[in-house]
């Protein structure tokens, strides 16, 4: 009962805020469900679990919009050393052995609920935030790369070279391990990850970001309605990134 009241109130506030925001916002700039916004001084909480749903049927071979946007947002650029250059997100092309059916999809940190990288990290630098985002605390990362050995998705990269062109919001440097942060600096400001924004901006609609804990979020509804998969579901890591169409 009180939940219903809460929900209706939330919707009402959401409508109000969205209306006001709509007046202020420029066209094309979308804000995430502002009613759920977290006040600035408050810590991320486990009432939320951020996740992503990727529809591989809408993801085109050759389209790299998400990868490009991630690179720009996070300052991850090629140095001409493909084997040592970090990749936070990459496009994987898949082909079924027998039928030859192909898929194209972005692969990045799956933000597991039971992340192996966090288990193995000797210093606790690899950690999962209360809202499910898996991060590397570079202040205490010693660069042992054990997390890279442990990750089943090859989601992590070691920074092999010095960098001095960091985005002020995204510190990164030589000698530490890094991976997709789900654009945590944007999520903390009620924005979507850069890859998702770019996918929508390109009218591909293959990526959806949202709160897996909120039954009324678009992502939860889609997961409740359609058949979705977790990559390497056999490992039971309970990934925050889900796929549709593979």
């Amino acid at each position: 009962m009180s939940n219903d009241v809460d929900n209706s109130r939330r919707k009402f506030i959401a409508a109000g805020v969205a209306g006001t925001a709509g007046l202020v916002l420029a066209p094309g700039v979308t804000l995430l469900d502002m009613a759920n916004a977290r006040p600035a001084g408050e810590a991320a909480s486990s009432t939320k679990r951020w996740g992503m749903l990727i529809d591989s049927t809408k993801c085109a071979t050759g389209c790299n919009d998400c990868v490009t946007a991630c690179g720009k947002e996070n300052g991850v650029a090629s140095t001409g050393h493909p084997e040592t250059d970090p990749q936070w997100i990459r496009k994987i092309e898949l082909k079924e052995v027998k039928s030859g059916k192909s898929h194209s999809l972005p692969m990045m940190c799956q933000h597991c609920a039971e992340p192996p990288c966090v288990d193995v990290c000797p210093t606790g630098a690899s950690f999962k935030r209360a809202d499910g985002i898996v991060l590397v605390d570079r202040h205490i990362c010693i660069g042992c790369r054990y997390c890279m050995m442990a990750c089943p998705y090859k989601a992590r990269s070691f920074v092999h070279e010095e960098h001095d062109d960091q985005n002020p919001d995204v510190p990164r440097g030589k000698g530490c391990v890094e991976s997709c942060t789900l654009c945590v600096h944007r999520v903390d400001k009620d924005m979507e990850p850069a890859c998702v924004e770019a996918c929508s901006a390109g009218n591909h609609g293959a990526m959806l970001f949202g709160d897996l804990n909120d039954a009324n979020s678009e992502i939860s509804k889609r997961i409740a309605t359609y058949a979705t998969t977790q990559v390497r579901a056999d490992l039971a890591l309970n990934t925050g990134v889900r796929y549709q169409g593979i």
Partner: protein
Amino acid sequence: MINPAKRRSVLGWLAAALSALLLAGVMPATADDEHGAHSGHKLIAKGDKCVRDEDYMRRNHMKILMHQRDETMRKGIRGSQDSLKNCIECHVNPKTNSVASSKEDFCMGCHSYAAVKLDCFECHSSKPKAPAVGMNPIVTPEQKSEGNDKQSSLSGKMRWQMQAKQASLNMGEGVK
């Protein structure tokens, strides 16, 4: 038997690593206890008052930064006045657009004088974000990547700063 020059360079390297640890707050910083020694160094691009009084900052800025670092990293509490980004906003050297690119810059000015190794900027940008005042919220992707301003929503940003101010007032003397 052992090449002294080589040994010295290795020792120097170890010493540098050790001083980085000092900075990280493993031990109380002693380098600036000779206070007043370098107090003439002021480089303030904007604002007339620091987040704490100068004397306190000179001794304890690393503690404040360390505290805020964990708050932001671990809990996602952003926008505090104690953030490194906020320090850079005010203390940037207009000539170099940095706080640590040369000995003229705010951070390096003291740190090179006190011979305390600073490794914040091996990962963090020492440059401020592009000026936010009067910013046009309509940002093209190209401008975004060059301008370094990743907040594409003005209203979001304003709301953010309001909240941040309140939050930092609450946290005010949290570090001591």
